[in-house]
């Protein structure tokens, strides 16, 4: 009987967010099912439920018809569910064989590990996979691609392996390495394993997948045999969203002024190079896939990452931001990408979270904070940004995601900035709050503040920006006037060229 993995109405909540909304789909053995969707569509949450990292709040997860409940990844692995992540999950100091049988190494008298047996079994699988490595090789001496193979073989070495999922497996592989990965995937498929393949790369999915399941905003949109759907249709399903009205009703009329920010050949350890300008009142959109280098640009500007080359000019003066503190003093502020890890101070009150960006201004020479002014900043933030909270004393973590984010924007606008950087400002926020944000962003630009908007949501970049820069491979690869651009054009620039293997 072929293996079958089934999700029935799986729903998963995080505080303030519904990450998966009644997702139902089936993956069958003997076919490769690709999962596609924009960043934040729910693919990673789904993988984590598959491998027991998370547990669903509602719905059923069936493996071969049996309802499953994994309390942790260990239980899922033991049940024959394997997920291969981008980050390696193997022990670099151990040998290939040891890694493959870690946690169930055969032992003899006094717990002595039967190493010969391990290597014998391991070598058999290596040969079966047709790979040029030895079971006795240390993993740290292998290439990244082979390390990944070790992980696959580790999952494969369990006789009960039913499903194997790959999360962006080709991200760090070369052309030939990708080919051998695909060969192995075909082998697993022929053996009737369920294969789930998560990737952004269209060409790859066409090469390897049989069927594609599309996700959007935590919902399953639909699936289709891969040869019955065109790239255009796929992209349209991934992005299609009823936000059109919201954007057309935005009042974007404003004066665009002089250049405020001039970034010249900026480099960092995580960024190849970036040059661009931002004018007063202008919204400059940054488009591109995750890890295209968008966040890295703004982190280098604000001193969150070290600058290794290039110059940043603000209002005609060269500035040097070694730390975020320097950037804030210069009037460059950032609403970071990950609200939870980089934005909010969870158990601090809403009011203090808003005022924490203005500590320098709030403190007198002895460092004593003007409590009245602090409370005013909190209250102004709450009113100006319509933050829904019964009182400002409430810990910010108890607010919904959208209201938390409004508080972070309020934090930075209360510092009276020149440049406001918004990195994925509406990630994980419901549609209602999103449209509020869009109006807010337009108002901010009208005040003459230069806005840098990073977003993976194409309608958002198109609907808000005056000018759009597209990034790929840690550099800017194109610039489009927002009025002339389409979603398809942006996604094509970000995905198609160069990134395709082979």
């Amino acid at each position, binding site marked *: 009987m072929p293996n079958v993995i089934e999700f029935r109405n799986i729903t998963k909540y995080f505080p303030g967010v519904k990450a998966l909304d009644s997702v139902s789909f089936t993956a069958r053995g003997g076919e490769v099912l690709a999962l596609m969707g924009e960043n934040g569509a729910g693919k990673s949450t789904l993988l984590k439920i598959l491998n027991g990292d998370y547990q669903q709040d509602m719905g059923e997860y069936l493996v071969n018809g049996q309802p499953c409940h994994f309390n942790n990844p260990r239980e899922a692995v033991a049940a024959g569910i394997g997920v291969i992540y981008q980050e390696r999950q193997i022990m670099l100091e151990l040998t290939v064989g040891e890694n493959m049988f870690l946690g169930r190494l055969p032992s003899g008298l006094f717990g002595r590990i039967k190493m010969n047996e391990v290597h014998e079994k391991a070598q058999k699988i290596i040969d079966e996979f047709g790979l040029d490595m030895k079971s006795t090789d240390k993993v740290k001496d292998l290439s990244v691609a082979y390390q990944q193979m070790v992980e696959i073989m580790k999952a494969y070495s369990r006789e009960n392996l039913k499903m194997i999922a790959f999360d962006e497996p080709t991200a760090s592989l070369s052309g030939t390495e990708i080919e051998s990965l695909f060969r192995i995937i075909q082998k697993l498929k022929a053996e009737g394993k369920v294969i789930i393949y998560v990737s952004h790369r269209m060409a790859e999915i066409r090469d390897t997948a049989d069927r594609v399941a599309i996700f959007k905003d935590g919902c399953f949109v639909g699936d289709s045999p891969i040869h019955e759907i065109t790239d255009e249709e796929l992209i349209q399903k991934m992005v299609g969203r009823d936000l059109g009205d919201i954007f057309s009703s935005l009042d974007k009329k404003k004066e665009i002024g002089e250049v405020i920010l001039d970034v010249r050949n900026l480099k960092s350890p995580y960024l190849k190079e970036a040059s661009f300008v931002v004018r007063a009142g202008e919204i400059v959109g940054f488009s591109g896939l995750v890890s295209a280098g968008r966040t890295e640009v703004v982190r280098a500007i604000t001193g969150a990452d070290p600058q290794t080359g290039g110059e940043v000019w603000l209002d005609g003066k060269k500035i040097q931001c070694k730390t*975020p503190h320097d*950037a*804030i003093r210069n009037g460059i502020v950032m609403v970071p990408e990950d609200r939870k890890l980089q934005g*909010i101070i969870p158990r601090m009150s809403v009011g203090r979270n808003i005022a924490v960006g203005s*500590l320098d201004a709030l403190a007198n020479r002895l460092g004593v*904070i003007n*409590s009245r002014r602090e409370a005013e900043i909190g209250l102004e933030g709450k009113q100006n940004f319509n933050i829904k909270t019964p*009182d400002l004393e409430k810990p910010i*973590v108890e607010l919904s995601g959208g209201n938390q984010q409004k508080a972070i924007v309020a934090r930075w606008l209360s510092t009276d900035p020149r440049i406001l950087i918004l990195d994925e400002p509406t990630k994980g926020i419901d549609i209602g709050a999103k449209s509020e944000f869009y109006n807010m962003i337009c108002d901010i630009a009208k005040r003459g503040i230069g806005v840098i908007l990073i977003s993976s949501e194409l309608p958002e970049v198109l609907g808000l920006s005056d000018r759009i820069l597209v990034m790929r491979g840690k550099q800017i690869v194109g610039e489009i006037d927002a009025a002339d651009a389409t979603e398809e054009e942006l996604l094509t620039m970000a995905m198609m060229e160069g990134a395709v293997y082979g």
Partner: protein
Amino acid sequence: MDKRKIKLPVSGNQFVLIIALALVTVIFSALNKNYFTYTNLINILVSSTLIGLTSIGITFLIMTGGNDLSAGSVAAFAGVFVAWALKATSMNWFLIGLIAIAISAVAGVTNALMVTKLNIVPFIATLVSQSIWRGFAYLMCDGKPISIADKGFLAFGKARIGGTEGIPVTVILMIVFFVIFGFILAKTKFGRSIFAIGGNAEAARLAGINANRVKTICYVMTSMFAALAGIILAARMNSGQPSASPNLHFDAITAANLGGVSMIGGIGSIPSVILGVLLVQAFNSGLNMVNVSSYWQYVARGLLLFASLAIDFYRQRTRAKKLLADSMKTL
């Protein structure tokens, strides 16, 4: 604004601590009728100065996500140093005390360097100092306690304001420090930075806060407070003892945690910690007065910290569960 809500003068956690303190008092009073007497209660206050002063530093430190296991050793070193210097030099006792505190600050600086520059976890980094400074204390006196004869210094340990039945000077000193540092934590930029770093270090950094500088100040502060505690102890014992205060950091950590200072950082207030200090000292003194052996006292101490940590854990978990339940209802 919600006008109907009546604000209590104490928070929920403080209320629980007051009840616990009352309970401990009632139990030990029942077991030993000398427990609930003016003299003994003052004695408890006097003894609490050591834990109290140290807990101020420890509170700041834990709130940033740090910790300090070297406080007891540093206190012993400072006590021995003062005793040694009073004998070996003719300097004024007050000046000697200041020098002892200044030298002890080096312990804080090295702790901070290990944590911020070498990325060593606070427990291990301060374990290094724990051993080194205890060693310095023994080396300074060759393992033998140094007795103190300086009248001015001994008077500092025993003097009372308001006659022989009045309030000890050291208790007043502790109260003054509680007030000053309570204000710093609640009302200054430095205090706010501590909350921010402990709450979310990366968010604090991106909000322009220099976390390493704040942490360094907290480590140095803790060592200086521990030194002050060690000096007070020496003055009260008429000698500098190299084996003194082996549990100082332990009791101070317990007091801070009982006082609602979360071990994950980011939460705490000095008024609650004061109650935690009183609870720990009332507990320790009570055990002494009902003749519980010092071996069993170690067990009891451990259990008290365990109880405190368990309460902290359940408090966090209940909160997290409530939050998720709220999200599920509203989304």
